C-alpha cells in the first residue's frame, strides 16, 4: 500500500502542478481538500477523476463518490487498489 501511496503522490503533484510540494510533505491521512490540508479544489477533483481513469482504468460515474475516495491519500490508495483494472 505504501508503494501505491507514494506513486499516487507523485502523480498528484505532477498532474496538479504542485511545484513546491514534495511527496514527503503530503501526510497520508491529512485532508486533500479544504483549508486544513493540501487545499485542493473542485477543478483539482476533476483532474484526479481523469487521473484515476487514465492511469488505473477506474471510471467514477457518481461524482459524490469522490468525496470519500479523495478524502486523503490513504482512502485514495485503498480505493485504487480495490478497483483498478490496469
Amino acid at each position, binding site marked *: 500500500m505504501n508503494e501505491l501511496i507514494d506513486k499516487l503522490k507523485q502523480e498528484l503533484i505532477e498532474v496538479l502542478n504542485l511545484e513546491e510540494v514534495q511527496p514527503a510533505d503530503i501526510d497520508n491521512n491529512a485532508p486533500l481538500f479544504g483549508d486544513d490540508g493540501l487545499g485542493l479544489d473542485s*477543478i483539482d477533483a476533476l483532474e484526479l477523476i481523469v487521473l484515476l481513469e*487514465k492511469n488505473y482504468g477506474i471510471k467514477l460515474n457518481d461524482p459524490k463518490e469522490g468525496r470519500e475516495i479523495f478524502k486523503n491519500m490513504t482512502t485514495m490508495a485503498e480505493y485504487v487498489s480495490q478497483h483498478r483494472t490496469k
Partner: protein
Amino acid sequence: MGIYIQSAAQISIQKPLTDEWLQQPIEHTQHHVRAIEPNFRDYLEAGESRRMGRIQKRALATALSALQQAQLDMPEAIITGTGLGCVESTERFLQAMVRSGEDFLQPTHFMQSTHNTIGSQIAVKLGCHGYNNTHVQDGVSFESALLDALVNFETGRIRSALVTANDELTPDYFALLGQLNYWKQEPITRQTLFNAQTPGAFAGEVSVAFVLQNSRNELSLCQIYALELLHRPSPEQLASCLSLMLSDNNLTLSDIDAVMIGKSGDRDNDAIYAQHAHLWGGRPMAWYKHLFGESFSASGLGLYAAIKCLQHKCLPSHMTLNGASISNPNCILMYNHFMNREHSLILLSTC
C-alpha cells in the same frame, strides 16, 4: 478630454520589465526566440500560478508591474488583445487527447486554452469586476483593444483602463507558420532584416501592458492624440486619414519627430512601408521589430517602444532607419499594417 498613458511594461525577447533595451538591446541571431521571463514568484504565489500557462503568468506580471508603476490598484476596465491566445495550453490538451485516443480531456489545460482566459486571470487576481473584453483580430488585435479603451473613455464609461497585448509562439506553431514563409531561413542579423530582400521575419513573443487614464498627473508619460484603423485603404485614403488626424490635433507633418513603422525584414511586408514612405514628408523613420521580433501583437511592443522613447527623451540610433539618434522627441506617429489588410495609425505626444 485627453487620454494619458501612465505606465507601460513588457515581457519580450528583450530583458523583461526594464527599459534596458533602449541602451543595450539584446541582438538575437536565432529564428525563434522565446520570451525572457522574470521571476514570476515576485508577482504570484506558487498556488496562484500552478494552473496558469506561460502567457497568463507573463500577462499578470506585466499587468501588475504597469499598475504598480501607475500607482493604480484597480483599473475600471481590463482590455486585452491577442492574436493566438493561449496556444500552449491548447496544444497540451489537444496532444493529450490525441495520445489517449480522445478518451480524456485535461480540465485545467482545456480551461486555460480560451483567448479570454488572459484578461480573466488578471481580473481574478485584482478582484476587478469592471469592463473586461478580449479582442482577437490577427495582427490588429492590440489596436482593436486600444480602440475599445479609447471609445470607452470618450463615451465617459471609464476613467482608467489596463490595456494589454499578449501572444506566445510555441515551437509547433512556429513550425506551422514557417511553412507559410512567416520566418526567415537565412541567419538573422540587423542587416538581413534591414535589407528585407527575402520573405519572412524573425519571431518574438509579447506580453505588454499599459495603464491609461483620462486625467493627467505627474506620472503621465504621454498622451494618445488619435488612433485610426483602416481596412485595405488606398494610398489616397491613408493620406487623407493622416491629414485629418493631424489637423484635428492642430499639428502638421513637421511636428512629428519620428514615424515608427512595423518594418520586420519580410520583403513583402516591408514593401508596403516603402510604398507609403512618401506620406511622411521626409520625417525621420524608426522601427522596432528588429529588437522585439514579429508576432500578432508586435504593434503593442511598438507602442511600448514609442512611449519609452518619449519618456526617456531619446530615440536611439539603433532604432532609426538612417542611424541617427533623435533627442527630445515630442511627437511620434506609429504606422503598422497587417498583411496589407488592416492598417493602423497612432499619434502620441509628450504631455
